[in-house]
């Protein structure tokens, strides 16, 4: 597994190393290194464990009980909550909406981010200023900006553009069902902010590609699109994988923020907000735990793909 040879440490201590002594010295040094490594990792692991370990265990355990405000006995019920969830048509509807929401927002973020990164990587006098402008949506504190954004697209009072906003809302809701515009306005915010993050991320990726590769590619390919498809995109793959994954985790946070801000008046038909609604509004904690854990298998698969894409590159010799 470990390819690290702590020979440097031994050389530095001035020991003449050869033969058997050398291998034992290496072993001792390696064991010491391992202890040092664990000690150095301890604070970080402790923080993550304190914040996550008990809550995750609690959530998993609760999903197998009957815990709710009406039944605080927390009797063990096995997979009953999951079975009820799978039999619930609302669950399947919410699952489809969640997947579509993730896919559409992530696709848009990638497309926008890639476009902006490709524009920014070309040298230009304006580049510095444009880069700052592109950076700004992500830098703007998202937790509160989403509120401002939401109120702007769904103005509560009669403002100068309430009529226009109302017309858009009714047009969209008429086609897609009540509440669609509220949902879309949050999705747009998520794309706006996440696209900025993705652009900066992919710009870093483009900067990492040696320019000779592009010069070579310019000779080998016929046009820009081919170059993009056969050279740029494959090289950017690990960066895109990381950006996509981080996009998943923020995609839901924005919806949750708006849900909390509006006091739970708006129910977005995605898994996460239904789980909130079950847990906070209805007090069905066990069902809420089961619902929110239902996405874990999907995310875990995404994570494994990410590890493959990312680490394979890292294993290549520099």
């Amino acid at each position, binding site marked *: 597994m470990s390819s690290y040879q702590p020979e440097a440490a031994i050389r530095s201590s001035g020991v003449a190393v050869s033969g058997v002594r050398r291998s034992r010295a290496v072993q001792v040094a390696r064991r010491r290194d391992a202890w040092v490594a664990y000690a*150095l990792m301890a604070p970080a692991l402790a923080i993550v464990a304190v914040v996550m370990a008990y809550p995750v265990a*609690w959530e998993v355990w609760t999903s197998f009980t009957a815990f709710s405000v009406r039944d605080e006995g927390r009797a063990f019920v096995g997979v009953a909550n999951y079975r009820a969830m799978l039999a619930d048509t609302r669950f399947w509807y919410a699952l489809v909406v969640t997947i579509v929401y993730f896919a559409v927002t992530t696709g848009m973020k990638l497309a926008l981010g890639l476009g902006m990164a490709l524009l920014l990587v070309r040298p230009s006098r304006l580049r510095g200023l444009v880069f700052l402008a592109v950076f700004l949506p992500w830098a*703007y504190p998202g937790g509160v900006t989403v509120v401002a954004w939401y109120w702007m697209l769904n103005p509560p009072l009669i403002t100068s553009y309430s009529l226009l906003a109302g017309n858009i809302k009714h047009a969209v809701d008429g086609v897609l069902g009540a509440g669609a515009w509220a949902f879309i306005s949050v999705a747009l915010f998520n794309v*706006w902010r996440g696209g900025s993050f993705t652009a900066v991320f992919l710009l870093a990726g483009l900067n990492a590609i040696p320019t000779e590769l592009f010069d070579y590619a310019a000779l080998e390919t016929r046009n820009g699109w081919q170059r993009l498809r056969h050279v740029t995109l494959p090289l950017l793959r690990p960066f895109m994988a990381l950006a996509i994954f981080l996009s998943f985790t923020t995609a839901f946070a924005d919806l949750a923020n708006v849900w909390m801000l509006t006091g739970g008046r708006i129910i977005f038909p995605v898994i996460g907000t239904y789980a909130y609604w079950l847990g906070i509004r209805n007090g069905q904690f066990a069902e809420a*735990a089961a619902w*929110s854990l239902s996405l874990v298998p999907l*995310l875990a698969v995404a994570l494994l793909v990410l*590890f493959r894409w990312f680490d394979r590159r890292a294993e290549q010799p520099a």
Partner: protein
Amino acid sequence: MSRRGRWRHAFLLGVITLYSLFPIYFITVQSLKTPEEDVFGSPLWVAEPTFENYTELFERGEAQVRGYAILPKVPFVVWLANSAVVLAASVALTLACAVPAAYAIGRLRPTGWRWWRRGLFATYVVPQTILFIPMYQVVLALGLDDSPAALVVIYSAMALPFCIWLLSAYYGNLPREIEESALIEGATRLTAFRRIMFPMSRNALVASGLFTLGTVGQDYMLASIFLLDRYKQTVAAGLGVMDVSLEELVAVAGVNMAAIPVVILCALFARGYVRGLTAAMVEGA
């Protein structure tokens, strides 16, 4: 590049600038309007700008009457200070824990080092949904109830996996000769790290710090759940309790006020952010 190509490039740069700035411009325009203009003016610009919504955030006293409603005054300056403290402490704690861990994973490579950082990264898969209920129990057990310190620990836990991932990639990719030459000179590991590797990783540290800042800035939910005392709240938690229909423009003003320092920080460090990401992921220098 041909002349036409250059114009097209400049035009497209203009488009993405407009696209990125428009939402911020739009909310700012609304927040500068008088109540009359908010109703009768144009949505796209402001004819008679007023800073009424902004100054209202800083007025002293407990309550005021507007129309028929009694609105509580907000301790906005306190919120700003609290946010700054939480932000600074989160960044400091995250970096203080991430740097040694990343060095250990990237350089010392204990058995299964790849799985350590993968395991940390996997915490992003855990759905946050109702996790705050057991988290509250943890916070109570630690005696951090209604204290910003609870948020600092939670934010750090959220930012750490990414920062460790990034920094360990950076330290792992550094050519080994850099560290070895110092060791041969007789320096200890710690000195070699402090004098050479740590200063070299400046941009990667900037990238980690800005990512932490983004994590803190993105949260509204946890802040509103864990901070209930008006004088201990951060801007996010505080603005959330405002009345939507009466004070939305004041809240927008608050968003902008809170954003100013963050934007300045980001403008200062944005270049380092990109360089740090690039360095960590590829060449390591």
